[in-house]
């Protein structure tokens, strides 16, 4: 085990969220493919997206996309700007804060209709 920098954990999360998003993409390709067999099949499957646990998972998917995006911006900024590399820690903090500032409210809007209707 190596007790890495914050950058190492963000890098691992970046990979995991990347793979997670890819996984969802496949699921999504599979479900839209069902349309080809007729609308009933597709509509049948939509129950999946409507039930509460799946909604929560969707919220995590949004989280994965947001994290991957914000962290991606951080990495790109580091690639192009020396000062960003110097202020690595600050940049990590900004990334994490920006992520939560967007992700938590998104949870409110996404989960409210499911749990309080």
């Amino acid at each position, binding site marked *: 085990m*190596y*007790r*890495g*920098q914050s950058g190492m954990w963000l*890098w691992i999360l970046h990979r995991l969220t990347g793979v997670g998003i890819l996984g969802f993409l496949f699921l999504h390709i599979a479900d839209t493919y069902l349309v080809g067999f007729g609308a009933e099949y597709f509509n049948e499957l939509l129950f999946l997206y409507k039930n509460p646990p799946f909604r929560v998972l969707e919220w995590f998917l949004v989280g994965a996309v947001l994290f991957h995006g914000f962290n991606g911006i951080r990495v790109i900024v*580091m*690639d*192009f700007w020396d000062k960003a*590399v110097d202020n*690595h820690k600050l940049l990590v903090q900004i990334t994490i804060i920006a992520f939560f500032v967007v992700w938590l409210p998104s949870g409110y809007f996404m989960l409210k209709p499911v749990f309080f209707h």
Partner: protein
Amino acid sequence: MATQVTLKILRYDPEKDKKAHFETYEVEADPLDRILDVLNTVKWYKDGSLTYRRSCAHGVCGSDAMRINGRNRLACKVLVRDVGGDTGKKIQIEPMLGFKILRDLVVDMDPFFEKYKSIKPYLINYEDAPASSERLQSAEDREIFDETTKCILCGACSGSCPPYWSNQDFIGPAAIVNAHRFIFDSRDQGSDERLAILGQGEGVFRCRTVYNCTDACPRDIPVTKAIEQIRRAMLYNR
């Protein structure tokens, strides 16, 4: 004031052991002792078979990079109190990751030095030196690569780098740092050759800006920054 310190050291003897295993030692040490001193105490008074590299004992030679409490450090630059050894915390010592363990804390540095040599770590200049026999350089030009002249080739950066662990062929941060030292030297004419080597698949673009190397470097070299500067030199020079 001497206190009791507990060390947990990863041991491996290729002639006896199939796998590396931890062994624990209790020794007396001062909070201001260095980890190297504590290792010496173990070797000299407890178990003479413990094997590790060390030479200068003053952070100059770069022989004693190892994992101390999970992070690459020079044993001669970390004090017992830096890692809480005087407050009863166990100090865990392991060889660096990303290298083959030869014995105990000694790892095989040969591939590391091969990679170092591959970036031509020497001044390349195809013109004769001026009659004064000195190639002059302004203070400003010298400043550009000042940080990367400080490398002692300890390997702490490469051994802390996830892409280096998982990819044997990755040239690694240490070699890149030493390429940086010449690429940005106004007296050097070998930049193109080095950039060509580092621009290949196993060169600078394997870096994932994980930043472990910058944290690990005992010489406080901004390793990640040096890598980024080389990448940009490639990007903008085209």
